[in-house]
């Protein structure tokens, strides 16, 4: 049952077919509509209950004091596992999972996001 050259027709066909890879970053593979990328806080909806921080498996969410009535979630995208559990745990739909996935930054602080309190003009507490 041994047959030499069984792969040859396949090899020849592949010589004339376009490459399977794309020329990143000039072009890129599109992400599907339900892609799990960067989680983003919609501040108007956030009640500051802290359910997202309690369920985050990577401890990427920290509740910080921003001068509002209750602490608000700050995201550390360097720790984030992109599991979207925070959006699922949120009772007020205040966390949106976006398709954003180009998250490279020059330093660790660039991957941290701290909410600003909309009620005053003071800068948010950096930690």
């Amino acid at each position, binding site marked *: *049952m*041994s*047959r*030499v050259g*069984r*792969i040859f027709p*396949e*090899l020849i066909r*592949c010589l004339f077919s376009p490459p*399977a890879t794309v020329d990143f970053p000039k072009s890129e593979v599109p*992400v*599907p509509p*339900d*892609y*799990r990328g960067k989680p983003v806080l919609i501040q108007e909806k956030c009640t500051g209950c802290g359910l997202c921080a*309690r*369920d*985050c*498996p*990577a401890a990427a969410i920290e509740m910080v004091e921003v001068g509002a009535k209750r602490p608000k979630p700050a995201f550390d995208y360097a720790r984030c*596992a*992109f*599991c*979207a*559990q925070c959006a*699922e*745990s949120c009772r007020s739909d205040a966390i949106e*999972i976006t398709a954003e996935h180009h998250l490279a930054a020059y330093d660790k602080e660039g991957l941290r996001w701290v909410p600003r309190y909309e009620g005053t003009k003071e800068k948010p507490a950096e930690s």
Partner: protein
Amino acid sequence: MTKYNLPVGPQHPALKEPASFWFKVEGEVIVDVDIRLGYNHRGIEKACESRNYIQCLYLLERICGICSHAHTTAFAQGVEEILGLEIPARAKYIRVIIAELERIHSHLLWLGVAGHEIGFDTLFMYAWRDRETVLDILELISGNRVNYAMNTIGGVRRDIDQAKREQILGMLDPLAERVKFYTDLVTSEPTCLARLENVAPVPADKAVALGTVGPTARASGIKVDVRRDDPYAAYAEIPFEVITSERGDLLGRAIVRLGEIGESVKIIKYALQNLPEGPLTVKAPRKVAAGEAVSRVEAPRGEDIHYVRADGSDHPERVKVRAPTLANLFAVGESMKGAYVADIPIVIASIDPCFSCTDRMIELVQSRTGTSSVMTWEELREYGIRWYGHGHRS
């Protein structure tokens, strides 16, 4: 003849159970194998005890990037058993669909790795190119290529709607065609036959005695499959065949894995066409009453066992995982006796322990004089290919 000790390992970061193999070789023939486990212990089981059940799911998913769904299914099933929850039928079907997609992607990955280890890199490239189809389907359903995070306690997190269903069904048929081609190729191409046929066979009695599971056991003619023996999720309602081979050698394992891809395609099609309507989850309490459960799942590499003990709080008291590679390692060690040094890479790779991207250090120590020579995994692979290329054992 002078005996050598040939240490391979212990660092295999791609493996779930990093192992060190000490081969005693006489010339080219392996006379004894000693397997040492316990390296690269990550403490995942202990870490589970300080996390709540939701967090545990994501932690356990990261035991292995390839069987990620198998681990979360096993854990979620265990917790659901303690809670006495019956998950909705739709969730059961979606769990099956993801599990079978994962099996296809794992087996195609294995085919590529096996091709690479025997020096058939064309097969490696083509198999991995076609594996992208499955990863695209998984990304379409779950939003991620690996670590799909589909399971939650009490059901699944995402639905498969009608549009996605049609799209997936359209992608499956070309994939099934490709798998047919690979089955034909592996069983007829002289390169594959020379390196796989009658190499390190595990006879049926030995396979049972050494406790093999999954494709490794089925390749020795043992009809064992958790999906059939102890149906979980929706497997009791879905018709499928358990693929076995009487060969016991490496070719048998390739035939079984490729045959299983065909069965998986059939299961996915059936599940997609018969997807029951209904909710995705039932509400699960955060605190789990005291109790314990053992849950079994057929992962791509074999039977995966999770033990969960709850104490009434929102985090487990104890979690224990037995992954399939542990069960298969010893049969492989045993089957190596009488094989050649050149066969080491492909025999270890034959149980699918994710050996692909590791570049290992191998030290050849002459036991009498104590002299040693160092080879990397890559050099050993090339040595094996060259050795066969020179017409040994032809």
